[in-house]
């Protein structure tokens, strides 16, 4: 009984530690500094969910970084729309159309905001 309690406590500590760990994906300072309410769910995701989940996005910048960049560059509305567009494209046909680059998390498909707003910028 004591042993099982100890195992549960250790597992809880590990789970809590993983959840509180900082994201392992690269985070630039300008993105971290985004204070808008629109960006707060993305910060929440990066801090608590992505940190536990690991760098699984096959694109670079990752979808959350892309969303923050889009909001920074084009404001909340267009940023939100571009982020949704990216989430629908992530890991699908874009892998065949955009170049693959080597990042510290492995090979990723390069799809920055500039690749999707060049036609109206």
């Amino acid at each position, binding site marked *: 009984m004591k042993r099982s309690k100890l195992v549960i406590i250790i597992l809880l500590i590990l789970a809590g530690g993983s959840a509180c760990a900082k994201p392992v994906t690269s985070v630039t300072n300008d993105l971290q500094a985004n204070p808008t309410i629109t960006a707060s769910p993305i910060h929440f995701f990066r801090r608590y969910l992505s940190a536990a989940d690991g760098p699984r996005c096959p694109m670079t910048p990752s979808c959350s970084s892309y969303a923050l960049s889009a909001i920074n560059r084009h404001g909340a509305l267009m940023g*939100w*729309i*571009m*982020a*949704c*567009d*990216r*989430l*629908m*494209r992530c890991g*699908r*046909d*874009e892998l065949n*159309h955009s170049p693959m680059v080597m990042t510290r998390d492995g090979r990723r498909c390069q799809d920055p905001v500039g*690749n*999707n*707003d*060049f*036609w109206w910028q």
Partner: protein
Amino acid sequence: MKRLCPIFPIQYTVLIPCVFLFFIQSAWADAQQFMVIDADQQYRYARSCYDRGAFNEAIHEFGRFIYFFPNDSRISRANYLVGMAHFQAAQYPDAVRVFKAIADNQRAAGLKSEAFFMLSRSHARQGMIEQAMLDLHNLIATSTEPEIIDRARYELGWLHVDAGQWEPAKRSFGQITQAHQARYQVAQLNAAVSRYDQIRTKHPFTAGLLSIIPGGGQMYCGRYQDALAAFLINAGLILSAWEAFDNELYALGGVISFIEFGFYSGNIYGAISSAHKFNRNRVDAFRNDLYRHKQPPLSIAATASGITLSLSIDF
């Protein structure tokens, strides 16, 4: 009393002058080793820096040459190489400054046209294509040598190709005089540029319109996985919002509708963006095909001291 300083007077009176003489001799020898660098040596060293790719060092050394030997006949050449070193080091604004000064300098007649070409390239490297074209137009207007004018027209044509202006590109290539048309492969170039209307493009407006049904625009652009994802996500969210409102869960329905607004708009945005990316890739492929005509693989040209044979291989 004698034992306290028994040998000082004799030994030190010999030793101290010897040490003194040794230092004087060393200093004299060092003074004999100074060297005078003449203009040839300085220019050769600066040029060697440039040739081995030490461009920043070359800029300093050519600067030293210009400062210490202002009356040398190679001053214009040194200035030009300073500009080239800036260009090679990707310091394009500095290169523009130097080449502009040479182009405006009446005394640098021999390098004036080369400075204009490099000025144009420096502007082009900074993305200032219009300014680069203007530089070449200025050169064409001021030059009297057909050789230079044709070369400028050829480079102007390529700038139009870079800007995706196919008809002006054709015009520029077509204006090259008959004598130089074979050298610049004008017939093949114009035939290749004329095929620009065969570039298959997608209409962004049509893509956006088709995306009223989620995924329609992506399918039009040949992105079938994206189309399926857009359709399923939007259909699922619309259905969820409908169910939520139907069950009088207005708050939940509102939240889902807000999210769906983003995905539905994103679906239209993505379709338009896909059409633009499709067109961009097609134009890039066409342009890359044209670039194959830019540098003939094997060419031969007469120079002052003989002939130059040039072989170009992509690797």
